[in-house]
């Protein structure tokens, strides 16, 4: 596949603070590439540099396409105007023909399920509807590269699914999509290639499977307890297990679950901590990220 975007050794400083530290990424035509990282990792700064809003302190960007379209995190809509007015405003900024913009806009509005509200003022829209309208606008131009900054933040699971379908459709039509996200399952489901970004550096890259294979432990032991969750994590850490809590579930990395599971249960019982249920799960990208950085994606 033809490489459409090549970003090499981008460094970005704001005063004395180095926000990006030599980031390099590549995006090919007809692929979805994700920048996965927690808030404040430098994803948005990188994407704003690629979109031509910020100037890098050093490094090079080569874009081999005609047009790139950008979906910012903030909706960027005129609240007092209708959905249609907003669509036509941005269509004119992209210098699209009115008839094309109307046709394409109508199609996208229908697919995202907000055509019935197109003539309402945006001020009356819910957060999810604004996000969808924003996505319609970003998908309007016939761009070679779609740059989406957190496209599903603030959407309900059903709407998220609709957006994912739209992104995959864009890919099938031969466009390249570069998206940032802090949702592990979004990156995992959509991406052909993932860059894990942390504190302004790419800490790992590859397909979801590659990353898990290379960086994640074989398994994650997930334990549900009756009580004493924090105490259990402490006990297990004292015994040398890498453990953490997620949604009231104690998770423990294990290279060898056959040996580790009985050991874990014994240790906990000996300290009067009783197990309600236990599951050995496949590792996720979240686990990869924790393994590499020692912190979770959703942590601030």
């Amino acid at each position, binding site marked *: 596949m033809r490489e459409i975007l090549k970003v090499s050794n981008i460094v970005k400083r704001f005063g004395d603070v180095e926000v990006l530290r030599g980031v390099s990424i590549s995006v090919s035509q007809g692929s979805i590439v994700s920048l996965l990282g927690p808030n404040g990792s430098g994803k948005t700064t990188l994407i704003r540099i690629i979109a031509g809003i*910020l100037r890098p302190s050093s490094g090079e960007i080569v874009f081999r396409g005609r047009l790139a379209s*950008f979906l910012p995190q903030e909706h*960027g809509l005129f609240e*007092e105007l209708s959905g249609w007015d907003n669509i036509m405003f941005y269509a*004119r*900024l992209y210098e699209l023909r009115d008839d094309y913009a109307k046709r394409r806009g109508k199609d996208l509005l229908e697919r995202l399920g907000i055509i019935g509200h197109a003539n309402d003022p945006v001020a009356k829209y819910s957060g999810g509807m604004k996000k969808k309208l924003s996505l319609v606008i970003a998908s309007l131009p016939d761009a070679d590269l779609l740059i989406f900054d957190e496209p599903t933040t603030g959407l309900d699971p059903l709407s998220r699914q609709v957006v994912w379908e739209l992104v995959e459709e864009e890919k099938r039509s031969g466009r390249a999509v570069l998206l940032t996200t802090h949702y592990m399952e979004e990156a995992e489901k959509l991406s052909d290639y993932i860059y894990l970004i942390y504190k302004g550096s790419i800490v790992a890259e590859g397909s979801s499977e590659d990353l898990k294979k290379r960086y994640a432990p074989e398994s994650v032991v997930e334990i549900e307890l009756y009580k004493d969750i924090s105490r259990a994590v402490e006990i297990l850490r004292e015994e040398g297990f890498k453990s953490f809590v997620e949604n009231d579930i104690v998770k423990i990395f294990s290279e060898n679950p056959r040996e580790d599971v009985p050991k874990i249960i014994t240790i906990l019982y000996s300290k009067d901590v009783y197990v309600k249920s236990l599951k050995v799960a496949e590792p996720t990208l979240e686990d990869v990220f924790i393994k590499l950085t020692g912190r979770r994606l959703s942590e601030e």
Partner: protein
Amino acid sequence: MSLQRIKAIATADLKSLWREKAVIFWAVIWPVLMVFISAYVFVPPETGSLKTFMIGVVDLDEGFGNFSGGRLLIDLLRNISYFKVVIYNSTEDLMKDLEKAEVDIGIVIPENFSRNLVFETADLYVYISGSDPQSLQINRGFAQAFFYHFERETAVEKAKRFYNYFQMYQKNFSYIYIPEINMSMSEIVNKTLVGIASPINIFFEDKIPRGIIDRSSIVGWITIGALGMTMLYSGLSFGATAVIIEKERGRLDRMIAAGVKAQDLFFGKMISAGVILLAASVIVIIIGKILGAKIVWNIADFRYWLVPLNLFLVFLMTLSIGFMLSLISKSSRSAGTLGIVLGLLLSFTTGIWIPDFMLPEPMRILAHSFPVTWALDLIRGIMVFDRDINMLISSQIKVVISTILLMALGIIAYRKVISRYVEIV
């Protein structure tokens, strides 16, 4: 620079601004209210017309022979157009109405007034009323002026009567001729007596600056003031918020990513603000005209074409100052508030809303050095006071130079603000 993008930005911004209640209030409703209130409260419809004085008279004089001094006085009062004379039967009734300020000046003509007027010194009782110190002062002034006139008329009348007696009983003496002055003794006595009664003829003539005194001119002045005030705070506010609001609402990134350049945004914003202020100006002028403002427009006269030019220059100046304000503003809310507050403050202190002669000295200095006031005074000079082009030309040059300087500073400020958020424009 892309005309299509400029048009898109101007159109969307205009629609958006037009639907914001605060913009409509400040750009249209507020100035209309100010003109309306000023025209009816501070310059009520009777302003500039002469006051009618209510004169109450009690005539107790019974006359002397066929002469009635009281009747003479009342006739004289009635001959004056701005006196309305009401005759009272008793002094008590007159006093009651004076106390209620229903009568401005009360006159009691006592008994034997006619006789004393002819032979001695007559007494006359004058009472001044007034609902406030200022009207009391005015009423007293008018009463004194009238009685000064009445005294002279009476003195001349007495001199004439004396001369008639003199001629009647001193015939021989009257025919003595005095060659040094080429007059008879009779003529000398006549002229001397009249001269004593009325030693100086003073000729008063009103010389009023053209166009300043009547109500229509005052309302015209106020209308242009309201226009200037609106342009000042709206221009400051639009300029101060132009970039910040786009950043805050997330549109700036999107516009730049879509290929919009700094100059596209600049001209787009300028056009939308300009259209709103043009509409506001037309509305304010129409309201002013309806309320009786003297605002003249003559398409064939070159001077009148300086009016739209100066309105445009005022707009550019205020927008430029607004761009400079955005340098110190952290949010669109603070920028907008700063624009409106500073705009109102400047309107009241630089001779835009309050005439400079009413301002204290330090503010007068500010008024005389503020280019927006120069431009508005030029507009007033043309539309309200019908001034000659020679009186306007030096101010016009100053206004053009100031606008160029302020625009240059405004553009520098605009670029600095936009580069705060977007590094590639």
